[in-house]
């Protein structure tokens, strides 16, 4: 039997409850179980994470097609720069009788 092939797994980590998941780095592992162990050791052993996501790199959809992401023609009309949303929202609130929402809690 040949030894199992190592492949890259990407590790995302959350520093504290409510924080976004951020890419931490990657580990090489032969399977899901050991990938989880190594992710724990490399990105959690110093109590720097409260959650990890471990994803086989091959399972990630990699979209880097510049025709799709950076199309060549002018796209400025898709950006909201021409609108001052604050005033429009304030006016809409007056019409609907709703107050300004509080900052969202975690």
């Amino acid at each position, binding site marked *: *039997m040949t030894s*199992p092939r190592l492949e890259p797994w990407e590790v995302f980590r959350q520093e504290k409850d409510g924080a976004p998941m951020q890419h931490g780095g990657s580990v*090489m*592992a032969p399977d899901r*179980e*050991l990938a989880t162990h*190594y992710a724990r*050791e490399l990105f959690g*052993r110093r109590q720097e994470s409260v959650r990890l996501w471990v994803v086989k790199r091959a399972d990630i959809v990699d979209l880097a097609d510049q025709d799709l992401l950076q199309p060549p023609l002018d796209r400025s009309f898709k950006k909201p720069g021409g609108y001052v949303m604050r005033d429009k929202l304030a006016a809409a609130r007056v019409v609907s009788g709703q107050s300004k929402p509080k900052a969202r809690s975690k």
Partner: protein
Amino acid sequence: MSVAAVPGVAVGELLRSMADDEFVIGFSDSEWTGIAPQLEEDVAISSLAQDEIGHAAALYALLGELTGEDPDAIAYDREPVAYRHCRLLDHRRGDWAMTIARRFIYDTADGVRLEALAGGSWAPLADLVGKLVREERYHRMHASVWLDRLACGGDEARSRLLAALTTLGPDAATVFSPLPDEAALIEAGILASPMPELETRWRTAIGPTFATLDLPMPPPARDLAHGRLDHGEAFAWLWHEFNTVRASEPGVTW
């Protein structure tokens, strides 16, 4: 229960045996740093080894409070003959299969021992054990994952694992060597059950894993009464290794 009511000598022997177990397996496994089978595993086994040394430090600190000794002095300044770790840990590091077999045996046995101490009547130890239990869970997961892979990973991996179990088997149950004045610990409600009962519990716990992987169960330990004595040549070597730095400049603050 107040500290005065604690059977000090018996608790001291218990703490010393546990601390020495953790200290010795920690140092043995740290021998893999830099040469583990793979970079990620190198980090993992080194981190595990550090955990064990950390557990030893906490247990030596508790022992020091009891005896008035300096925890570092207990850890380092004894002659090899005064250490009370179990004979399971008196083997050279060997190959990866040897390390995994020993870790699996020790971690599962230690788990049973910790269970018997959790909720004990002496709060300082019961509190510490509560924390150790949470950390040791990960250690058992790591050992199990690797035991599976070696047992089912092809001829060479399996034959190396079987060789390791043959070497370690007769010493496996020495984790449950009787402690001096064990009855006093049970009487005081510090240890829930005597060691032979814990050994039975451990065998029941690991039985299904050994059966599933078609591995031979460890035989009864030879000379259990001396299971934590007479450490031999492999430990003499390790003792010298872990003492080298401290012995190079006695009394200095690092």
